[in-house]
């Protein structure tokens, strides 16, 4: 049968964010997929070099609106290790509390989106209604629904009162009850299970070799979680288990995320009940000592890495962000292969793509002499036109 290429995106009904996919199909079956990035690239890493560390916290927060706390925590941890600051216990607990609430909010959101892509819109509306409870809790703690701005270098900016603690416990009880209902629904509702099971298979070995991260990796039966493997903040003293599934498909990813939400709810309960007393932050120096730091963090979507190089001034010399979605792209292409066209949105949604997180700059490494080069957009266009034999002025990516 003849192979046909279908362009999807950047603005497409199935996609919530601008990304372009080129799918090669043979009849209904996907043979190959190509991901084109850069529509959401804003140049945050470069911008970070011209701002002070405190200003950068607010910039890092705006890498992504869903996992905003992940990026700030990851950045702040790196800076703290550079300065050699010891964050007070209470500060760490509040930081982890917001982190787990964010995970709950992100997984609720994802469950809704996945249900929507599977054609189960009532579940989408249900989960988003219940998600408002988490949003309220986050608003109670931080004063904002999405960008919490709770982190600062050396601790957190807001303390928790007794009333807030009670409110959190109350809200968490409600979320727990609802999640139990969804666990039951998501794993037993025959039409939903039929839609998601066996779709987007990612075998264990492939998941390993393609460096998948987060729930995508855990759904392929590998128990890897930065909170357990390389504990940051105070995760080493909190009891929780890493959730996995062995079915390696979208159903597995649903199960992993539902289980993880239940774990997060337990962690939040533990954190609120065992909140130590004392200070919430220490004073941080304006200038950071010269050095390099790598900080790892388990975001709702997987492992988040920040690299910070400091040159002794109040501005970083280099900040590099490796967001979890970027690590999951190779695995997504593997999952798409031999699937059907109708499965594309579902498979793509199953990695919980956060495109704005993953848009970093282009660095070309010559494999022959290991020269590294940063290319401008114009240069990339020029090279691409040359390699494709395009005429001057013709569209580079014809759509």
């Amino acid at each position, binding site marked *: 049968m003849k192979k046909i290429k279908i362009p999807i995106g950047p*603005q497409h009904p199935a996609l919530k964010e601008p990304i372009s996919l080129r799918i090669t199909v043979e009849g209904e079956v996907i043979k190959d997929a190509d991901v084109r990035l850069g529509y959401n690239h*804003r*140049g945050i890493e470069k*911008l970070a070099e011209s701002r002070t560390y405190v200003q950068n916290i607010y910039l890092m927060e705006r890498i992504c609106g*869903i996992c905003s706390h992940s990026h700030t925590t990851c950045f702040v941890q790196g800076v703290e290790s550079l300065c050699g600051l010891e964050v007070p216990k209470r500060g760490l607990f509040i930081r982890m509390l917001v982190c787990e609430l964010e995970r709950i909010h992100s997984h609720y959101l994802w469950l809704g989106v996945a249900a929507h892509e599977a054609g189960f819109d009532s579940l989408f509306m249900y989960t988003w209604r219940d998600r408002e409870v988490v949003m309220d809790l986050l608003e109670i703690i931080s004063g904002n629904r999405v960008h919490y701005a709770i982190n600062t270098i050396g601790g957190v900016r807001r303390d928790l009162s007794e009333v807030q603690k009670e409110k959190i416990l109350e809200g968490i009880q409600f979320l727990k009850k609802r999640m139990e209902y969804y666990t039951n629904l998501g794993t037993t509702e025959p039409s939903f299970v039929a839609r998601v099971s066996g779709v987007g298979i990612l075998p264990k070995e492939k998941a390993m070799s393609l460096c998948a991260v987060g729930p995508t990796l855990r759904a392929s039966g590998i128990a890897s979680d930065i909170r357990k493997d390389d504990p940051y903040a105070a995760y080493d003293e909190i009891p929780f288990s890493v959730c996995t599934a062995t079915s390696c498909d979208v159903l597995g990813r649903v199960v992993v995320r539902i289980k993880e939400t239940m774990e997060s709810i337990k962690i939040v309960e533990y954190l609120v009940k065992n909140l130590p007393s004392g200070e919430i932050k220490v004073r941080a120096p304006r200038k950071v000592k010269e050095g390099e730091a790598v900080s790892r963090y388990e975001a709702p979507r997987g492992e988040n890495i920040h690299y910070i190089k400091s040159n002794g001034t109040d501005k970083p010399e280099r900040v590099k962000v490796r967001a979890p979605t970027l690590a999951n792209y190779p695995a997504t292409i593997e999952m798409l292969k031999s699937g059907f066209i109708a499965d594309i949105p579902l498979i793509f949604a199953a990695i919980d793509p956060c495109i704005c997180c993953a848009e970093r700059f282009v660095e070309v490494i010559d494999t022959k002499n290991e020269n590294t080069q940063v290319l401008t*957009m114009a240069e990339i266009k020029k090279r691409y036109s040359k390699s494709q034999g395009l005429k001057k002025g013709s569209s580079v990516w014809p759509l």
Partner: protein
Amino acid sequence: MIERLIKWSRLKSPWILHLNTGACNACDIEIVDALTPRFDVERFGILLKASPRHADVIVCTGPVTRQMKDRIIRIYEQTPDPKFVIAVGACAMSGCVYRGAYNVIGGVDQVIPVDIYVPGCPPRPDAIIDGVVKLLQKLESSK
């Protein structure tokens, strides 16, 4: 008579297209929030559409990136007349924290005409709904 009928039907059910021009997802989830049960703009007849050809109102989020510039213009041209643009969030208004970044042009108004600005980083769903209602009032008073 027919014009009045068209205006009436337009006021009662504006269909919106959500266009992410390089946003950080925060405004986007707040827009989806506005469509889901707690805020539920569907009770006003506002419906989220996936194709620009079905839409009356384009809801833009985020600063305009160089990659998206041509696509935004194309989507704007694909939307049938009369069309309206709402810029949601500080980024869509002026560029917010990304101002000065090499790949960011600025607010959405640098590329296409904007009718309503909704400030906030991100604006609450209530604010977004308020923006849509203000647009409808503007429509109502216009001929």
